[in-house]
């Protein structure tokens, strides 16, 4: 059985083969869970389920990876999160 070269397009984001950087959102005791969910849906365009799952990860685990990509992209995302009042950082994905 031969396997055709796989070209997978992720349902939500188009991710380059090398995605060296990630954007994390950190838990904080002030922001409302509903608002955090809204931000993930509004800015990243995630569906309700994914946005809520990420929100719960932030809440329960202290932080969650909300996106991956180039350094510039992740810095752009982190800045956007700060504009919404969330706290985000960028780091190398390793």
């Amino acid at each position, binding site marked *: 059985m031969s396997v055709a070269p796989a070209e997978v397009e992720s349902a939500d984001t188009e991710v380059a083969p090398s995605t060296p950087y990630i954007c994390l959102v950190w838990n*904080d*005791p*002030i*922001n*409302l869970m*509903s*608002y955090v*969910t*809204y931000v993930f*849906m*509004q800015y990243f365009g995630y569906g309700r389920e994914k946005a809520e799952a990420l929100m719960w990860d932030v809440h329960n685990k202290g932080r969650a990876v909300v996106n991956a990509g180039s350094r510039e992209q992740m*810095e752009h995302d*982190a*800045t956007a999160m*700060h*504009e*919404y*009042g*969330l*706290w*985000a*950082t*960028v*780091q190398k994905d390793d």
Partner: protein
Amino acid sequence: MCEQVTDLLDDPQPPQEVPGWAADLGLTGVGQARPTPSDPVLARLLPDGYANPDEAGEFRRLTEASLRARKQSNAETVRDQLERSPVDITDQVQAWLSFLADCRLILGTRLDVTEDTSMLPGLDPEKNLFLYLAYLQQSLVETVMGE
């Protein structure tokens, strides 16, 4: 609250002026490298983007001015709309939600809110305002999410 937010966010180190030709191209000065704000309220509104202080400082140098400006602009949008009657915020929902988040960050940081803080109103007017803004923000989020 609007004035408090705009005053708090007034940039003590505005980006350097750029020559006319650069401004025409949409380039802006990026200012000096700066450390994390020592005021905890400001530090929460303008958080570090990297764990490493050098990277955070560089990130801050490039982004803090525009972040301050965006938050001020949100506060001004809200203030302008409140001065009109009736208040119709349909086109500016995101500005309102971001502004409410910033207000709650300011108040919450000043009140030293933690996960264990009681969410019941009491005698502290600042705490009551903090809780009231939560109610406002929650209502607005639910409305736009169609709940």
